[in-house]
């Protein structure tokens, strides 16, 4: 996210927004996690209780998806920092 065009007040509003966002993001992660792991792990409807095989699969799926989300967030932040650095250098160069 390139915030270089924003004023100080906008930046602080953006920070407040980001905190509020974290709760939203948690809920979205939660709902997506349930939906994806259900889709990938539960395909037997001859019983109404999770089998131990399905249970194991859900556990691994949750662990994997959380690690994946964290890794994506980390890399995305790095790419973004790199981009801002490049833009600042460009601005320096053009002055």
């Amino acid at each position, binding site marked *: 996210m390139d915030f270089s065009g924003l004023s100080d007040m906008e930046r602080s509003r953006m920070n407040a927004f980001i905190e509020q966002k974290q709760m939203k993001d948690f809920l*979205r992660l939660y709902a997506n996690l349930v939906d994806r792991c259900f889709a990938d792990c539960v395909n037997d409807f001859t019983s109404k209780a999770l089998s131990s095989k399905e249970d194991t699969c859900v556990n691994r799926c949750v662990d994997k998806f959380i690690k994946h989300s964290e890794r994506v967030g980390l890399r995305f932040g790095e790419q973004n920092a790199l981009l801002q650095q490049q833009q600042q250098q460009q601005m320096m160069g053009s002055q």
Partner: protein
Amino acid sequence: MNFGNFGQQTQVQSNVNMSMAEQELEMVTTFIVDSCYRKCVPPKYQDGELNKGESVCIDRCVAKYFEVNMKVGQKLTAQANQGQLR
């Protein structure tokens, strides 16, 4: 939807609690309908009724979705309490 008492344990304010419940409801409502339709109702429309097999499948699908939702909530809570999750 149960958060494994997530709300109480982390002392979030009640209005955040509300907003969580609201959003959870909205997302789960859409997701569970879509997910169980895909799992239980094949897109061959011989008639407009749910047959016996489809009906039983839907009941079990909802029960299992509910169970997975509980498990994931408890797992996330446990990880949050251990500080593994931000």
